[in-house]
């Protein structure tokens, strides 16, 4: 105990020396640190923190001066309104770049504030296509968006499950509809046929009528764009109607909650997809997890590697531009290309990650299992 206190004091001294000599560059991190997905939020923040510490250890010099990066972590509670409040707080504190937010719902409204302030933002986990379609310069993400996800779902349904006939249902939300539309395009592109396109709402519990109609069309695969609260009961009703088709849903259904709600209707015929790749399939995944665990005493949840890469993208762009001024390093951030933990990090002209990966999961032994 005494030793660690001493170490802490030394660390504090070290930092205060650093303050005196180095140029301090603040980088913001926003994620829900309280509430039901706070474990994922902390994961993101730790990912960014690890990147900051790595960069500091390298002794980077910008504009001839040694640089000391500092992480300013904020909690957006996964709430859009809080998200914009803390975004403003970061701008007031003059951070030079932002890693976040976690949810699409908070990232989209906050991105407007970063855009107005001219500060680049890189989200490690927001997948809604709209984020990068707003025409804002300086908004990026290191994870595949729902357009990329939809094309994987569609392709997988036709080729992976050899389902020539696909029925699609969506819940008419921005997320569900977007994912379903992209899936539909991909199914057609892969040579499949859409035999039914049905709709429900994000408040419904009864899907018997649309499922009965789908049954008459005799599909090989049923795809649902929506959340687990509808998807679980839907799978149950598919079974109740004696439909033998396979079931695919997006990341909204890729949860333990889905498995709980679908109960005994779960089988190896249920699939879901999620943006990103599982840790052990990332190029630098194993090594990253080990270092992460050593530093924070807990393994990676989901998005920490993406947050690490997002932070590194900002830092690399600063180094390339030899400036920490957002105006100077933004052009470099657009051109950035390096081998990150999750794979190659480079952005297309909208700010989406190029070659964003999407993974398909199959239900196996009581959980979603990466294929």
């Amino acid at each position, binding site marked *: 105990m005494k030793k660690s206190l001493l170490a802490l004091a030394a660390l504090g001294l070290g930092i205060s020396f650093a303050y005196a000599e180095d140029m301090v560059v603040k980088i913001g991190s926003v994620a829900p640190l309280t509430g*039901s997905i706070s474990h994922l939020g902390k994961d993101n923040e730790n990912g960014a923190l690890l990147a900051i510490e790595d960069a500091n250890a390298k002794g980077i010099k910008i504009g001839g001066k040694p640089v000391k990066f500092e992480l300013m972590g904020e909690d957006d509670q996964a709430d859009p309104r809080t998200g914009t409040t803390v975004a403003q707080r970061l701008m007031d504190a003059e951070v030079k770049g932002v890693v976040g937010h976690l949810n699409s719902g908070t990232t989209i409204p906050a991105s407007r504030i970063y855009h107005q302030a001219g500060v680049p933002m890189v989200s490690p986990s927001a997948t809604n296509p709209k984020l990068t379609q707003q025409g804002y310069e300086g908004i990026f993400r290191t994870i595949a968006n729902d357009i990329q996800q939809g094309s994987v779902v569609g392709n997988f349904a036709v080729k992976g499950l050899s389902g020539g006939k696909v029925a699609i249902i969506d819940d*008419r939300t921005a997320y569900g509809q977007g994912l379903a539309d992209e899936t539909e395009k991909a199914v057609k592109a892969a040579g499949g046929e859409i035999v039914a*396109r*049905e*709709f*429900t709402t994000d*408040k*419904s*519990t*009864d899907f*018997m*009528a*649309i499922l*009965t*109609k789908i*049954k*008459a069309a005799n599909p090989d695969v049923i795809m649902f764009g929506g959340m687990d*609260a509808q998807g*679980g*009961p839907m799978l*149950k*009703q598919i*079974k*109740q*109607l*004696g439909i033998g088709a396979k079931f695919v849903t997006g990341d909204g259904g890729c949860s333990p*909650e889905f498995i*709980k*709600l679908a*109960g005994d209707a779960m089988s190896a015929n249920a699939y879901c997809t999620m943006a990103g790749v599982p840790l052990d399939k990332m190029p630098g995944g194993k090594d990253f997890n080990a270092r992460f665990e050593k530093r924070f005493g807990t393994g990676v949840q989901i998005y920490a590697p993406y947050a690490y890469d997002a932070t590194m993208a900002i830092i690399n762009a600063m180094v390339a531009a030899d400036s920490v001024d957002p105006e100077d390093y933004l052009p470099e951030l657009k051109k950035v290309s390096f081998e990150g933990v999750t794979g190659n990090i480079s952005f297309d002209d909208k700010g989406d990650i190029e070659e964003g990966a999407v993974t398909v999961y199959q239900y196996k032994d009581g959980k979603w299992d990466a294929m």
Partner: protein
Amino acid sequence: METLLQQILNGLVVGSVYALVALGYTMVYGILGLINFAHGEVLMIGALSALTTISSLIGVAPDLPPLLLLAAGLLVAIPTCMTVAFLMERLAYRRLRGAPRLAPLITAIGVSFLLQTLAMIVWGRNYHTFPQLISTTPLQPIDGVFISPVQISIILVSALLMFALVTLVNRTRLGRAMRATAENHRVASLMGVDVNRIIALTFVLGAALAAVAGVMFASNYGIAHYAMGFMPGLKAFTAAVLGGIGNLAGAMLGGIVLGLVEAVGAGYIEDFTFGFLNSSYQDIFAFVILGAVLIFRPTGLLGERVSDRA
């Protein structure tokens, strides 16, 4: 053909639940002229209190037969809902009985929010898995047409309860007092009817039906949460208007008709409109039917005699 039969069955199951809930709306309206928008929340409280009872019983004695567990759930849910409805009438609506019509209506919406928020505090925001104690394994009475035991029991229990209620209202002393109160509070009270008691009883009876409907609804879909009462409540209200609000037989007919229209509408709307509309309009389809019925029969299918009211 199997598809049409299956859709009719789907509609019957959903319609039976609507009908049971619609009875609660229509009874209260018949007697007070009040639309009790909080009635859908009573259904939710029924389902969630049954859930708590059943899961704690399973925790204590996991080997109890499923039907006994379900009965225990109902035995708790029904009195809970009755109490909620009684308090609702006593504390919120009774004071407003002479007030302009808008006041109790707004109060009802307020009570609905209050109950939802309370339920959110007690049971949390998450979806709960409701134990499906009656089998959901589908049977095939006709080739290609599926119905599960839980769905059969929903139709049967609803029919039985509706029959019991009609008998109560038309054949018993209590029923006669209810009908008298509906006709005219003051005259009824002059004839020796305790109007306050009858009104409270009306609320409580409607709540008991809603409790059963809630448990059946949750058992069928295997899901329960604090906002689950909203949609069935809205649909049941529509059903009550469709059948003729204030009229018991009308509420039942309205519920079944609405359920059938929804199912058949969702299934065939694309064919009817030559692909112009699709199933995202299934709710609109139901409301178009409602509009059409009200244009030709302003008081609903089995409309109440309007001249008696006011």
